[in-house]
C-alpha cells in the first residue's frame, strides 16, 4: 500500500525528523504485545514509557520555549501524535500534558506554572483535567460542581466524570462554579474529601470519577481565576480535540495498512481475497476516509498555528474531530470486516484498533456532537 502522505504531501526537515523519531520510539517501546499486556492494569499505561518520553522532551511538546518546552506548532505536534495513535500508545500525552498541563499554562497563576510545569515536563508529576459534569456534555461553564469561598480559599463540592488517566494522576485541575463564573483549581490526589472511582474501558484504560465533598483548596492553588476558567477550558479542550484527531488519524491509518496487508495474503477460493472487487472497493472507501481525515487535520493544524483566535480554532477543532471520529469508527469496523472471522477474536490486533477508536471518537465530543457544533459556529454562506 502506497502512503499518500509520502506521495503527495511535503514536510520540512524538522517535521520529518519528529515523525521518524516518534515512529522509532514507539516501535522500541514494544509492539501491540505491550498494549495487550497492559490492558486493565492500573494506571492504564507505562510509567517507564512516560519517563522515556520526558527524556525526549515530548511532555513539553506543547510548551513554549520560555518554559523549556519544545514549543511545537500543531503541524509538527500532530505528526508526533499520529505516530502515537499508530502505536496505540496509551500514555496520556494529550490529557495530562497538553490539556491538564495546558490549563495551568493558560491560567493566571504564575506561581503554579513555575512550580508545576517543570515537574510535569520532567515526568515526575502528572495532572489530570477534571472538567466534565455529565455524560455526552461538552459544557465548559461549570454548574454542578461548586467552589464556595472560605477563609483564604475555596471549598469544592460535586462530581467530575470521564477523567482519563485519573489513576496515576498526582493532582487534578478541577473546574468549578463560583459566583463570578468558572474557575480552575489544583486539587492534590488524596486531598481530604476526595474520592476517586475508576471505571475500566474497553481499550484496557480507565476513566475516573472524582467526587469532591467540601474539599478545601487554598487561593494559591487557583489555576485560573473565577470567570477565566471557561476560556482556559475551551482553549485546552479544542487543543485536545485537534490532538485527539491526530491520534485517531494514526489509529485508522495503521488499521487500514494492517488490513490491506491481510487481504493481500489471505486466500479463499484459491486466490487472495484482496483480489475481489467488493473487498477492494470497501478498502478504497476506508482509504478515502483516512485521507479526508488527514486533510482536515492538516487544515486544522494550520488554523491553530496561524491564530489563537478561539472562534476560528473552535471551528477547526470541531471540523477535525467530527471527521476523524466518524472516519476512525468506520475504518476500524470496516477493517474488522475485512479480516473476516479472525477479526472478532481477541488474538487479532485489529480489535485493539476498534476499541481505541471507540474511546477516542467518543472522548471530547462525538462526531455528531461536533457536526452540530460546527453547524452552530459557522454561519451558512447562504
Amino acid at each position, binding site marked *: 500500500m502506497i502512503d499518500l502522505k509520502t506521495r503527495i504531501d511535503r514536510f520540512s526537515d524538522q517535521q520529518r525528523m519528529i515523525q521518524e523519531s516518534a515512529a522509532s520510539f514507539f516501535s522500541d517501546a514494544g509492539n501491540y504485545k505491550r498494549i495487550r499486556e497492559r490492558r486493565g492494569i492500573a494506571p492504564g499505561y507505562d510509567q517507564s514509557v512516560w519517563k522515556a518520553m520526558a527524556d525526549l522532551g515530548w511532555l513539553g511538546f506543547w510548551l513554549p520555549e520560555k518554559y523549556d518546552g519544545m514549543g511545537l506548532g500543531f503541524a509538527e505536534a500532530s505528526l508526533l501524535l499520529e505516530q502515537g495513535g499508530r502505536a496505540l500508545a496509551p500514555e496520556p500525552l494529550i490529557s495530562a500534558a497538553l490539556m491538564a498541563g495546558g490549563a495551568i499554562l493558560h491560567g493566571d497563576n504564575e506561581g503554579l506554572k513555575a512550580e508545576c510545569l517543570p515537574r510535569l515536563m520532567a515526568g515526575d508529576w502528572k495532572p489530570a483535567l477534571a472538567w466534565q459534569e455529565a455524560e*455526552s456534555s461538552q459544557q465548559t461553564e461549570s454548574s454542578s460542581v461548586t467552589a464556595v469561598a472560605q477563609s483564604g480559599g475555596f471549598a469544592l463540592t460535586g462530581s467530575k466524570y470521564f477523567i482519563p488517566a485519573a489513576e496515576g494522576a498526582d493532582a487534578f485541575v478541577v473546574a468549578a462554579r463560583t459566583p463570578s463564573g468558572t474557575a480552575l483549581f489544583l486539587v492534590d490526589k488524596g486531598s481530604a474529601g476526595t474520592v476517586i472511582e475508576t*471505571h475500566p474501558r474497553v481499550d484496557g484504560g480507565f*476513566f475516573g470519577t472524582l467526587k469532591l465533598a467540601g474539599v478545601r483548596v487554598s487561593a494559591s492553588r487557583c489555576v485560573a481565576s473565577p470567570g477565566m476558567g471557561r476560556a482556559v477550558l475551551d482553549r485546552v479542550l479544542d487543543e485536545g480535540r485537534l490532538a485527539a484527531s491526530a491520534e485517531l488519524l494514526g489509529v485508522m491509518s495503521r488499521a487500514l495498512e494492517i488490513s490491506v496487508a491481510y487481504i493481500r495474503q489471505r486466500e479463499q477460493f484459491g486466490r487472495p481475497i484482496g483480489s475481489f472487487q467488493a473487498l477492494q472497493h470497501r478498502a478504497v472507501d476506508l482509504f478515502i476516509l483516512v485521507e479526508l481525515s488527514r486533510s482536515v487535520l492538516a487544515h486544522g493544524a494550520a488554523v491553530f498555528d496561524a491564530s489563537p483566535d478561539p472562534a476560528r480554532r473552535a471551528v477547526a477543532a470541531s471540523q477535525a474531530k467530527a471527521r476523524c471520529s466518524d472516519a476512525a469508527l468506520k475504518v476500524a469496523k470496516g477493517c474488522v*470486516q475485512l479480516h*473476516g472471522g479472525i477479526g*472478532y477474536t481477541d*488474538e487479532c490486533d485489529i480489535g485493539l484498533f476498534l*476499541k481505541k477508536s*471507540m474511546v477516542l471518537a467518543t472522548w471530547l465530543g*462525538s462526531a455528531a456532537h461536533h457536526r452540530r457544533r460546527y453547524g452552530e459556529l459557522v454561519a451558512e454562506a447562504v
Partner: protein
Amino acid sequence: MDEQAFRLEVRQWIKENFPEEWRFPPHRLSLRQTETWQRKLYEKGWSAPNWPKEYGGMGLTAYQQISFQQAFDAHGINIAPNMAVTMLGPLLIRYGTEAQKQYYLPRILSGEIRWCQGYSEPGAGSDLAGLRTSAVLQGDHFIVNGQKIWTSYAHEADMIFMLVRTDKEAKKQEGISFLLGDMKAPGITIRRIKNLTGSSEFCEVFFDNVKIPKENIVGQLNQGWTMAKSLLGSERITIGSPRVAKYPLQLLGKLAKERGLMENPEFRAQYDALRLDVADLDATFVRFAEVLRRGEELGPEVSLLKIWITETYQRVTDLMIEITGEAAVLDEMLVLADGAQVHPANHYFASRPASIYGGTNEIQRNILAKAILELPG
C-alpha cells in the same frame, strides 16, 4: 386455541416460569447455563417450535413461530439458539435413518444430548467447500483428522454434527460427508477462542485420529454437501431471523428512553427507521418461513434475509454506541431503571461478525447475483 389466546398463554407462562435473574442478561446465556429452563420448556412441549408435531415439535406456522419467539424476546430472554433444534433436527427428519430419528430426535428435544456444529475450518471460511478435515473409513469407523473453528459452545457439547472430506480425489463439493461425532471421543481437543467482548463462546476443535462409528453418517457417503447447503439455508434463515436485531433494538429503546431521547427528532428519525427496518424484515421473514411451512426448501434467495438483518443489527448497535456517549466505551454493565443490564460496547462488538458468519455478506451477495439475478460469472 385461537392465536390471541395462545399468545397470552405463552406470555403468562414465560412470566411465571422464567427465572427473574436471567432477564436481560449481560451476556448471552448458554443452553447448559439455562438447563433448568430448557427442561421446563421440554416438559411443556415447547422445545421445538419449528418441528412437526409427530416428532414432538409444536408444528407452528411461520407467523406463529415469529409471535412465539417475540414473547421470549420481549421478556428479555437471551439464550444462544439451540442449533440442534433449528438445524440438525430438520435435517435428520429429512435425511436421517429411522434409527437416527428414533435415537436422536427425542434426545435433542429433552436436551439430553447437547450439540455443537463443525463446519468452518481455518482455511475454509467463506470457501466452506474447501474444507480439509478428513474422515477415512476403516472397518466400522471413520477416522477423523483435522481442525474445525468457530464451533460455538464446543466445550459444553456432548456431540458434534460436522462436515468432513471423505473423498480427496473428487471435486471440492463432491467428496464431503455429514457425520455425528461424540465430543468425548479420544483424540478431540478443544481450545476456546476469546472474542472482542471477552467471552469465549467460540472454540477450535482439533481431531487427531478420532473414531466415529460408521452408522453415524447422515445421508449417503460423499453426499454431505447437498445437505450442508440445505443446512446453510436453515442457518441463514436462523441468522436472518428478525430477533437478531430485535433484542438490541429493544435495549436501544430502553437506553434512549432513559436518556430522554424519545422526543429528540434527530434520534427519532434514526430510531424509527431502524424499527421499520426490523418490521419490514419481519414481513419478509414471513414470506420465507411460509416456504418451509409448505414443506418446500429455501434456495439461494434466503441470503437476502441474512444480509438485511445483520446489517440492520449493526446499524442498531452503531446508534446504541452513539447515544450512550462516554459510558459506551466502559467495560461495565449499565443498569437501567427497570433493572435490565446493558453493555453497549459488547453489543457493538457482537454485531460485527454477524456479517461474517454463515458466509460473509459478500458471499451472500455473490450468491444472489449469480443464482437469482443470473448475472454472468
